[in-house]
């Protein structure tokens, strides 16, 4: 099941890339498409941040991941590289669990 989902997702992502190079420009230059598509990653990434920080299964929770997110926000403001943002969040959660 995992393999099927992985491969279907890979095929879908490739199809979207190929569609951009292949479809007539008029289809993708439609104002609604141009306006809407860039908003999708903003909304999805924000929803991913929220759900993966504040939930476990169906329950809303506030735990060490909240502190880790605050540290990550600080690192983003300091313009830290990607890996530093991720590693500092993980290290914060690990340290708080040790205490």
């Amino acid at each position: 099941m995992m393999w099927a989902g992985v491969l279907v997702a890979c095929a879908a992502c490739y199809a979207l890339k190929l569609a951009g190079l292949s479809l007539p420009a008029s289809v993708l230059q439609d104002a609604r498409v141009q306006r809407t598509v860039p908003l999708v990653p903003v909304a999805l990434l924000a929803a991913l941040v929220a759900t993966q920080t504040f939930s476990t299964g169906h329950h809303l929770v506030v735990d060490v991941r909240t502190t880790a997110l605050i540290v990550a926000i600080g690192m983003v403001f300091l313009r830290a590289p990607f890996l530093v943002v991720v590693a500092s969040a993980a290290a914060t959660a690990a340290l708080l669990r040790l205490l």
Partner: protein
Amino acid sequence: MDSTVRRGVIRDALGIGIATGAYALSFGAISTAAGLSLLQTCALSVLMFTGASQFALVGVVGAGGSVWAGAATAALLGSRNALYGVRLSSLLDRTGWKRAAAAHFVIDETTAMAIARESVPESRFAFWTTGAAVFTLWNLGTLIGALATHALPDPKVLGFDAAPPAAFLALLAPRLRAREPLAIALAAGVVALVCLPFVPPGVPLLIVAVLVAIYGIARSGR
């Protein structure tokens, strides 16, 4: 094309490749900690080859969602690559196997490098050089990150469950430079949390995607 331009492009491409390779280390680690096998993790980097979508799929699976909810989220995040293709299609070959091969390399980094050049031959050179550098180092980074995490007994002890939100935040931050995206991001976070107790894991993301699409289409009429 003169050799100074060529060398400049190669240097930039390697710089971008090394940065994405470092970022791939965290993808390999997060994917393995989420429960994907080494082969599945590497298959994502070889075959999907678009970072945010890969992080989304393994993030949803790692949080207990179905792989199908993860796949749908990955595809939705991949939709922006179609818009990059529109900007690149006048610069790249329009036909045959070269277009099919080029399509795989249509990502944020290659688009940025190709559209920044002055002429079509330079753009093509920048596209393929950046694509090759990023593809090689992205896959190498994924493999190393996955192998390192595979050797760990319990990834949660090391805070690996706090890593995906930080990764999504780092991907999101550069897109928040105006008021509208910031408002959309906050609204999306709240809506996802409100839906979360009532629907299967991963589904809040799809609800958010539908709502933002309706918003975007409604607003573009004016």
